[in-house]
């Protein structure tokens, strides 16, 4: 049922989806489908988000107060639920981004040294 076989895209690491959603919303409010598209496009079509998995994540973030949501109208005149970053979410994004950068840098160093 997954889309793996049709694409050779990367699957998301556990726990990174939240960070990507927050990052995507920094440019303004967006609905779920828009977020999924944005992640795909911004990652040069490398990252695939299973759309169904996106919504529980959104729900989780909303409950934690990192994003807020309200129903609105999309650019092509469809009703959609729009999500936007809350101030808390913004702070969380900065924190998580720093953490991620340190993590990837550290992992990168190890992997490179292995390569040699």
């Amino acid at each position: 049922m997954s889309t793996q076989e049709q694409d050779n895209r990367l699957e998301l690491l556990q726990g990174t989806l939240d960070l990507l959603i927050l990052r995507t919303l920094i440019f303004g409010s967006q609905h779920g489908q828009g977020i999924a598209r944005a992640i795909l496009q911004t990652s040069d079509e490398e990252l695939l988000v299973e759309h169904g998995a996106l919504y529980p994540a959104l729900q989780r973030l909303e409950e934690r107060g990192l994003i807020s949501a309200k129903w609105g109208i999309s650019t092509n005149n469809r009703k959609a639920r729009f999500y936007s970053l809350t101030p808390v979410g913004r702070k969380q994004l900065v924190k998580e981004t720093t953490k991620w950068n340190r993590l990837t840098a550290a992992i990168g160093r190890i992997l490179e040294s292995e390569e040699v």
Partner: protein
Amino acid sequence: MPGLRWIRFNSFRQKRKPGDFGAEIEAHLQLEKDRLREEGLNDEDAGGAARLAFGNVTHAQERLYESGRRLWWDHFWQDIRYALRMLRKNPGFTIVAVLTLALGIGANTAIFSVIESVLFRPLPFSNPDQILRVYSTQNGNRVDAPGGPSPMDMRDFAQSNHSFEKMAVYDTWRKNVSFASGENRPEQMRVGLVPGAYFEILDVKPIMGRVFTEDESWVGKNYVAAISAQVWTNRFARDREILGRKIYINDEPYTIVAVMPNVIPEWMDQDSTNGDHSAVQIWTPFGFADALGDLWTEAGRRGRGWYSLGRIKSGVSMEQAQGDLATLAAGLAAEHPADRGIGVALEKLSDSRASNMRPMLLLLMGAVTLILLIACVNLANLLLARNSVRERELAMRAALGAMRGRLVCQLLAETLLLSIIGGAVGLLLALLGVASLSKMRPELMPQLASLGVNWRVLLFTIGASLMTSLIFGLGPAAAGARLNLVETLKLGSRSGTAGSGAQRMRNVLVVTEVAMSLMLLVGASLLIQSVARLEHQPLGIRQDHLMKGHFYLPGVRYPNPSAITRFCDQFADRLRATPGIVEATVTTIFPPTNGWKQMLGIPEHPASRIQDIPSAEFGLTDAHFLKTFGIPLIRGRNFSETDNATTPPVALISQELERMYYSTEDAIGRRIHIGPPQLLQIPPGAIITDSADVTIVGVIGNFRNNGLAAPPEPQIIVLYSQHPLVNYGFKDVVVRAASDPHALTPEITRELHTLDSDMPFAQVKTIDELIEQQAGSHRFTTALLALFAAAGLMLATVGIYGVVSFLVAQRKRELAIRVAVGASVAEVLWLVLKQGLQMALVGASIGLVGVWAAQKLLNGLLFGISAVDPVTFAAAAGFLLSVVMMACWVPARRASRVDPCVALRAE
């Protein structure tokens, strides 16, 4: 269930509705489709691709939903709804379980509430355990109720003891009380004659004013009164200026010196001998200006049987106080002839309440506990039986992936729901029960007036049944953990038996149930028989159409015995002339209780020791006593109108008296001395008719004079007109009517008021009512016990029926095979009946042994029947067995009709 949804919606308002998730997912799919179409896909492909990219829509929706709310709450409601559905689907099981629970909880809560309020609730006084009753004893038995020592003895105790802070004797009398001079007719009220120490011992402080001083106990200084707050409110409208006002007691003015709070419980000063249960609302000092003469002389030592109270010093034990007083009593006995053979006994005031009801209440307590046990056993049985059927269902659920926790939760929900419903119905029963109990016999248990359901008791009983249902309801869930799914499912498809362990358990439960209900049955039938015997006890009189009433001639207006005699004779004459009245007599005694015992000096029966002194019930009447009561004259002559104050005093004695003291010689014509014989050296002129020598003129039939349950005591009757010393103002009139005696009350009152318009006519009762009242407490308990026995029997029947029909259902296949291979209907029937019979027989034997063991408790409550009456035992056991057989018959018949083809195919 709109109600439930409403609750859920409101308590989670901030959460999203499931529809909202759906809409969002729908919107997503639309947007994705739009997008894909833009990229050039056709409509159909775009939809498919969007769906593909989304993954499992339902799964996502579920995950969204689950993340959005508290799952346990949802599961909880789900379980409750499921449980409700289960209960609704098995109405038989539900109704039986709920009724079982309700019966156990309701009956226990009601009875224990009563018992707590009657026997165990702390007294409303400070340090109530220090307050004691002091009794005089003779040959180890208490003297006549209320049983306190004589005032002189008590005074000596109070002066010389080291254990008591204060001691007091007191009394209550019916007197004519009016609250304003000449304004309204006086009423008869019970007046407490108490020293100030009475209030000090109870530690009851006046709302206003002061308690009586010691001085005021002296005759002449005693014209002060204390009134209760209730009288103050009802009669004086809480007048703040009440102190110093006067009330009139027996036409004499008493100055109000105190208003006392309404804290003294009514039962404390009840007069149980004549069934007077009205509360004492007015108190005057313990000093007498009445015909009884002076209490504070050596002669007064003999007058025992007062009310008594004492408060022991803190730190002194009851045993110490008892030892202290016993030493003093021995000293008094050595010093005063009147105190020879007299001992002393103590009892906590709190233990003295409901003293005559106590064994009955304890019996009821035992009975109702049996009911609770039976109810619990029944519940256990029901749950066991049902759960063994459900083991298959549970195994199936487990096989389909249900977690153990969820299975436990589900069973828990069902059990809880049952308990809650049962508890609610039980509470309703308890409320009804308590209300009707306190209404049924308020005069027997005056404390019941303030009775409510005891919440602690309710919680306990609900807790007990909850425990039962948890233990037996969750058993299979616990077993489910260890359940071998395949085995259970396989086994289930064959027979559904839960294994022999559960079966043995059920058998034990049924046996217990039968045993307990047989005990109830035997106890109830024994009591019913004894009440029947008690009430139909021949009294020795003609009981029909008799009615009595009480009046009191105050000393102020009737200063001498001849005035009293004149009034009584006139009154009785007028009544005899009244149409509708067949006969009338003025008397101090009437069956079935007399209450005035008198020592006798019988020359033919000399006594050298105090125990050997003859004594008899003593009564003062007029010449119409025998005729009015229909008591037969055996020999000699009756009193006649010509016997009067100027002729030699005469007496009638009962056959019992003659038998005891005149066995060889004829009593007629013998002289008898009313009062203690010479050996006691009591100075003459004291309380009783010491100088009264009478001649026996007749022997009369025995009649009940010592209560319904006791055989007639020896009786001696004299004419009040011939005994001025004891011709007191308190008298009863007894009339025999031609028809309903109650209809005559206005006539009698009118005749009384013609003679004296200020005289109250009180305590009007027919003899039948008196008897009923005497048997009343027995009858009351018996009715309750019979009710419990019926309830127990019902529960046991239901339990046995349930188990046997369950067994039959389980053995259907086996029975079908038996029928198929040629077993007859009778054989199958017997097979099933045998199983029930075995359990019933074992249970019945255990039950009979139980009654045998409890006979000591029962014996004291029975009258005219043994606690191990073989007929009752056999009848009860036989009855129970036949009921059990009937309970087995229905499923047995069902089993015998099993069509082997259908039964075997159904499996």
